[in-house]
């Protein structure tokens, strides 16, 4: 299987076999990601990191992935000091940077920008997040974390928090449906999973349960994917406080959990996971942050064709 020159825009563009291949590749690259082994696969390659909006975590983990594989990065610098401020459109920027780099990692505030970039770039594009639509490297690293810390096939998973606006949970649901899963969605009524996503999942044979209580489901899931509920989603601050207090993971809550339960979170967390949880064997969110490195290494190596 070759993914050479493939754009990485949405997980939906990949078959289950291709996803497995990406995860297998990431697993092989783990010792390199940890710095235990040197492998200069991207030696001589230039990777353009075009971040049109701030995103420290995604940018740094891409940069770390490139460095671990011996490649060089090109930065946009600050948007204010770039050609963008002179009025250059994204299409022209893509045409130009294609001449400078072997692959482009793009993060852009507009929805669909990464898909558009593929029409103008002559090198592969990896979507580092386009507005509120897709963030495929996050989904791949979520899948990789689940595979490494638990299992993908027929997983019993709960997703909690802001399920209405959270793009990470939407993409993850779709990807997990390729493996069969029992899904439970835990959210306040105003932040429920969009009904069309629930309908699609059910049409694909996925069992779906919806609730607003973590206590009710904590004993019956293998993975709990927690997300942050943002204050700005609520008109009434009192309502936000109420929801926040209901959706939190504490030591007490975990006393009735499955001993093998793993907790994931795309980070940053605020106070939805109490610090006392960090030292329990359930906490997988910092490992999840690490898994972002081998996943991004794998995607860079596969799309540039240095691994085929």
């Amino acid at each position: 299987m070759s993914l050479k020159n493939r754009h990485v825009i949405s997980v939906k563009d990949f078959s289950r076999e291709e996803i497995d291949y990406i995860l297998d590749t990431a697993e092989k690259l783990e010792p390199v990601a940890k710095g235990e082994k040197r492998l200069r696969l991207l030696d001589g390659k230039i990777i353009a990191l075009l971040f049109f909006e701030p995103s420290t975590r995604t940018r740094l983990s891409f940069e770390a992935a490139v460095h671990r594989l011996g490649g060089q990065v090109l930065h946009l610098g600050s948007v204010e000091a770039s050609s963008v401020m002179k009025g250059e459109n994204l299409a022209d920027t893509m045409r130009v940077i294609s001449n400078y780099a072997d692959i482009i990692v793009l993060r852009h505030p507009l929805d669909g920008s990464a898909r558009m970039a593929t029409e103008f770039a002559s090198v592969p594009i990896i979507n580092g997040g386009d507005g509120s639509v897709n963030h495929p490297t996050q989904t791949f690293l979520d899948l990789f974390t689940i595979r490494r810390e638990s299992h993908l096939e027929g997983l019993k998973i709960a997703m909690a928090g802001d399920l209405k606006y959270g793009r990470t949970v939407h993409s993850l649901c779709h990807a997990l449906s390729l493996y069969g899963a029992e899904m439970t969605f835990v959210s306040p009524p105003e932040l429920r999973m969009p009904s069309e996503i629930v309908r699609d999942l059910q049409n694909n044979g996925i069992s779906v349960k919806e609730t607003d209580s973590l206590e009710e489901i904590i004993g019956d899931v293998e993975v709990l994917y927690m997300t942050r509920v943002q204050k700005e989603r609520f008109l009434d601050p009192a309502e936000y406080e109420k929801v926040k207090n209901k959706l939190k993971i504490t030591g007490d809550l975990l006393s009735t959990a499955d001993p093998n339960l793993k907790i994931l979170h795309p980070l940053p967390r605020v106070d939805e996971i109490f610090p006392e949880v960090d030292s329990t064997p359930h906490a997988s969110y910092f490992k999840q942050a690490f898994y972002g490195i081998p996943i991004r290494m794998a995607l860079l190596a596969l799309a540039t064709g240095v691994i085929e």
Partner: protein
Amino acid sequence: MRVKRDLKIQAIECGTVIDHIKAGQALNVLRILGISSDFRATISFVMNASGARGKKDVVKIEDKNLSIEELNRITLISPKATINIIRDFKVVQKNNVVLPSYVEGIVRCTNPNCISNSSEPIKSKFSVLQEDEERVALQCLYCEHIISENIAENLL
């Protein structure tokens, strides 16, 4: 005075008659076909005419054959419209419009944050989804946003 129904809109010698348009959508049909004030052929239309299946609109375009692709776009706002090609006052061909699977540059994405609403050199692109017999939805190929209502109001 009693007016004969068939005089409301004259038969045409040659051209295209779009019949069974959803009532009130005739002007949108013209918009979706890109017909504006610089269009030279004669156009006549009735809105809210009573037909066997309730109220409907009818548009007649003389001396002009529109492409099948152009005509099929009408399904976006009126899935049950029919097309009659007229020669010598006779219907020589009658077709239902067929839902296209893809449309480009004719509808604006309703997501204000979509890249297709920015100053980039691209046209809007949608895949067409049939919700049911009467309703059509569009999914933006850039931002994945689905427009299931008010398509006519978002024609470019």
